[in-house]
C-alpha cells in the first residue's frame, strides 16, 4: 500500500515487453488480494494506460491485463462499473477474439466477474457483443476455457429473461447440452448451472432447454460422485419442473423423479435442497403427478430429511413438499399419514427452537394434509398432543368420518379418544363445539357421560 501502485505505473509504459508484463501481473495480484488496493488502482487511473496499448501487445500482456481487470471487478459492483466505464469491455472483446486460449480464458473470466454483480452490468457486457464470442469459446477443445465460458454465460443469464433470451439466441443451449456428457466434474457443474439459470425465467426458455434433449442424460449427472454436480443437476430439474404441469409430466415420464429421489437419499446437507424442492413442485401441479411421486417412493426420503437435517430451511422445504404431496385427496393424505409424517410435523410446529418460517410451513402443510386425511389410526396420536388451532381440524375430520363407520367408532372409544374429546373445552357456537356435538351424537348417552 505504500505507494506501490504509483511505482508500478511507469513500469507499465516501459520499453521492454517483459517488464510491462510483469508489472501488469503484479498489479493483477495486488488487485485480486484486497479491495482497497483495487480501489487505489482504479483511482490512480491505471486502467486507461493498461487498455491503450492492448491491441498491439502480445498474449502474455493480454493475459496479465485480463487478470488485472478480473481482480478489480470481482470485489464490488461499483468497482466493476468503474472498470466498464474505462472502456474495458471493448478491450476484453478484442482479447476474446484472440487465438490463444489462455488469453480467451482470462478475458472470459474477467467478463464473468463483471457480469456477476447486477443486471445493468450484464446488459453492458451483452451490448459489447461478448455473447457470440463466448459461445465460440465454449466450443474450443481446452477444458479450462470451456469451464470459464460456461460460468460466464451462467452469470450473464441469471439476472433477467431478456439476457437469458440473448444467450439462447446466440445458440448456446445446443453446445451446453452437448457438454453435459463431458467427464470433467467442474465443467459439468458450470454447464448445469448455466442451463438452470436460463431455464428458470420463463416457460418458453424452459421448453427450449428441454428440447435440447438433455433428458435422460441429466439423470446420469445426478449419480455423479461430485456433490455440486448433483446439486446443480437437481437445480436444473427443479427450474424446469416448476413452470407447468406438462413439463413436470415430461420429467416424470422420463424417470426423473426416481433419480431425484435416489439423489436425495444419498446426499446430506444443502445439496439435498433443490431435489426436495423439485419433488414439491412436481407434486403441487396435479394429483396424478403427486400420486406418481408417492408411487416412486418419494415420501420416505422426505421424512428422513425432516428428521435428520439440522438446517431450518431444508426442514421447511421438506415440510412444504410433504404438504404439497398430501393435500390433494384422501388417498394422498392416507399415504402421507401412513409414513408417520404427521407426528414429526407436529413436533416441529410445537418446538420452540424452530424458526418462524419453519413453523409456518409446518403448520400450513399439516393443515392441508389434515383437511383431507380420513385415516383415523394416524390421527389418534395427534389428538393427544395437538395445540388448539390444529385440534380444530383433527376434530373436524373425526366428525366427518365417525358418523358413518361403526368399527371406527368402537376403536375411537376404546383408544380413549372420546374421553379426550370430552376434555376439550370449546366456546359454544364455535366450529369446534359443532364438531364435538356431532361426535357426541354418534354415541349413546351413557358412554358420553
Amino acid at each position, binding site marked *: 500500500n505504500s505507494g506501490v501502485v504509483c511505482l508500478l505505473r511507469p513500469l507499465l509504459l516501459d520499453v521492454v*515487453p*517483459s517488464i510491462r*508484463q*510483469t508489472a501488469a*501481473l503484479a498489479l493483477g495480484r495486488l488487485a485480486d488480494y484486497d479491495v482497497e488496493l483495487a480501489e487505489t488502482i482504479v483511482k490512480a487511473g491505471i486502467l486507461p494506460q493498461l487498455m491503450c496499448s492492448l*491491441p*498491439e501487445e*502480445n*498474449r*502474455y500482456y493480454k*493475459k*496479465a491485463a485480463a*487478470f488485472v481487470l478480473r481482480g478489480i471487478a470481482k470485489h464490488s459492483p461499483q468497482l466493476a462499473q468503474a472498470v466498464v466505464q474505462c472502456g474495458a469491455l471493448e478491450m476484453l472483446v478484442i482479447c476474446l477474439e*484472440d487465438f*490463444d*486460449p*489462455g488469453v480467451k*480464458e*482470462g478475458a472470459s*473470466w474477467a467478463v464473468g466477474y463483471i457480469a456477476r454483480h447486477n443486471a445493468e452490468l450484464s446488459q453492458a457486457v451483452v451490448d459489447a457483443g461478448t455473447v457470440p464470442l463466448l459461445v465460440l469459446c465454449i466450443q474450443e*477443445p*481446452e*477444458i*479450462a*476455457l470451456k469451464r470459464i465460458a460456461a460460468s460466464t454465460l451462467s452469470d450473464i443469464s441469471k439476472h433477467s429473461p431478456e439476457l437469458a433470451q440473448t444467450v439462447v439466441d446466440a445458440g448456446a443451449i445446443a453446445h451446453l447440452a452437448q457438454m453435459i456428457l*463431458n*467427464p*470433467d466434474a467442474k465443467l459439468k457443474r458450470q454447464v448445469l448451472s448455466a442451463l438452470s439459470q436460463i431455464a428458470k425465467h420463463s416457460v418458453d426458455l424452459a421448453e427450449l432447454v428441454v428440447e435440447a434433449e438433455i433428458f*435422460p442424460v441429466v*439423470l*446420469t449427472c*445426478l*449419480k*455423479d*460422485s461430485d456433490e455440486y454436480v448433483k446439486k446443480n443437476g437437481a437445480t436444473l430439474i427443479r427450474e424446469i419442473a416448476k413452470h407447468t404441469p406438462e413439463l413436470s409430466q415430461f420429467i*416424470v*415420464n*422420463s*424417470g*426423473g*423423479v*426416481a*433419480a431425484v429421489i*435416489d439423489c436425495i437419499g444419498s446426499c446430506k446437507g444443502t445439496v439435498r435442497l433443490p431435489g426436495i424442492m423439485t419433488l414439491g413442485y412436481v407434486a403441487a401441479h396435479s394429483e*396424478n403427478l403427486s*400420486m*406418481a411421486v408417492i*408411487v*416412486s417412493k418419494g415420501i420416505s426420503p422426505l421424512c428422513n430429511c425432516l428428521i435428520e437435517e439440522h438446517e431450518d430451511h431444508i426442514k421447511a422445504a421438506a415440510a412444504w413438499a410433504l404438504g404439497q404431496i398430501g393435500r390433494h385427496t384422501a388417498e394422498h393424505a392416507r399415504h402421507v399419514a401412513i409414513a408417520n409424517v404427521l407426528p414429526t410435523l407436529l413436533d416441529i410446529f410445537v418446538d420452540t427452537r424452530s424458526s418462524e418460517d419453519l413453523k409456518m410451513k409446518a403448520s400450513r402443510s399439516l393443515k392441508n394434509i389434515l383437511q383431507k386425511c380420513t385415516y383415523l389410526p394416524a390421527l389418534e396420536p395427534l389428538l393427544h398432543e395437538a395445540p388448539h388451532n390444529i385440534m380444530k381440524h383433527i376434530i373436524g375430520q373425526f366428525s366427518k368420518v365417525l358418523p358413518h363407520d361403526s368399527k371406527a367408532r368402537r376403536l375411537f372409544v376404546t383408544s380413549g379418544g372420546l374421553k379426550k374429546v370430552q376434555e376439550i373445552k370449546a366456546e359454544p357456537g364455535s366450529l369446534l363445539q359443532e364438531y364435538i356435538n356431532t361426535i357426541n351424537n354418534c354415541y349413546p348417552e351413557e358412554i358420553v357421560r
Partner: protein
Amino acid sequence: RAIDEDRKTKYIAALKIQRWFRACRVRAYLRHLSKTATLIQKWWRGYLRRKNFREVVERAYFIRKLKFYNEMAVRIQKIWRGYYVRKYIHNFYALKKYLEAVSVNNELVRSELQEYAEMKENEEKMKDLEKKEKEKKYQARKMHYLLSTEQIPGIYNSPFRKSPDPMELLLRKSKPLTHRKQKIQSSFADELYDWPTCKKPPAFVTALPLLPADRQKPQGPFRDPAEVLRQRYKPLEPTLRVRESMNSPPARAREATGREEWRSPIHDNEFLPFSSYHKKAEKYEPSLCKSGKYGREAYGTKHFREVYPKKWIADK
C-alpha cells in the same frame, strides 16, 4: 169500539198476513232470480269451458309429455356423463396403468443409473490401480541396483524363502533408469488423460515464461526474439471483405444481385480477353500422327530433321 178494535186487529192482522205474503213472494222471486242467475252462469261457464276444453287438455298433455321426456333425458345424460368421465377424464384404470408404468420406468432408470455409478466406480478403481502399478514400476526401475546377483542374494531374495519376492521379479523385469532429466508430470495430466482432445494442462498459467536475463544469445544469424515473437503473434487484420461473414446482410445482398445477373445477363457473348486464343481453340488442328498425305508421316517417328552443321552461320 170493540168492533173498531176488532177491525183494527183484523186490519193489522191482514196487514201482517199481506206483509208476510209479499215478503214471501219477494223472497221467492229473489230466490228464483238467484237460481236463474246461477243457472245462466252455470250454463255460460260450462259453454266457455267446453270451448277451451280441447286446448286445455292438449296443453296439459303436452306438458306431461315434456316432463316425461325431460326426465328421461336427464337419466340418459346422467348415465352418459358418468360413463364418459369415468372412461376418459378420470379414468381409474388408465391412471393405475400409468402409475404402474411410471414405477416400472423408475425401476429401469434406477437400475441404469446404478450401473452407471458402478461403471464410474470401476473406472476410478482401475485408474487408481494403474497409478499404483506405474508407481511400483517406477520405483523398481529406480532401485534396480537392489537386484540379486549370482553371488550375493538381494534383499528381496532371501535364501530362506522358497521363491523370490514379487518385488524381486519386478526388478528383474524392469529396465534400469537412465539419468536423463525426466519430464515432470503435472498433476492435471491425471485428470485429463482420458479426454482425448485436451493434451496440455490448463492454459492460464500465472507465471509468465520470462526469458532469463543472463541467457546466452544463441550463436548464428538469428533475429531478435522480440521481433520474432512480434511477427509470430501479429494479429490477423483481414480486409473488410474477408472479415465479413458469409451470412452477414451485405454478403447476402451481394449474393442476391449476383444471382440476378447470372439469370439475366445483358451481354450474351461474354467478354473474352484473349479472343484470338479462343478462336484458335475453335479451329481444328489435326494431330501429327495422322496428318500426312497418305497416312502417317514418317517425320516425328521415323526420322527427325537432319542436322547440317555446314549450313550453320553462327560459328563463322
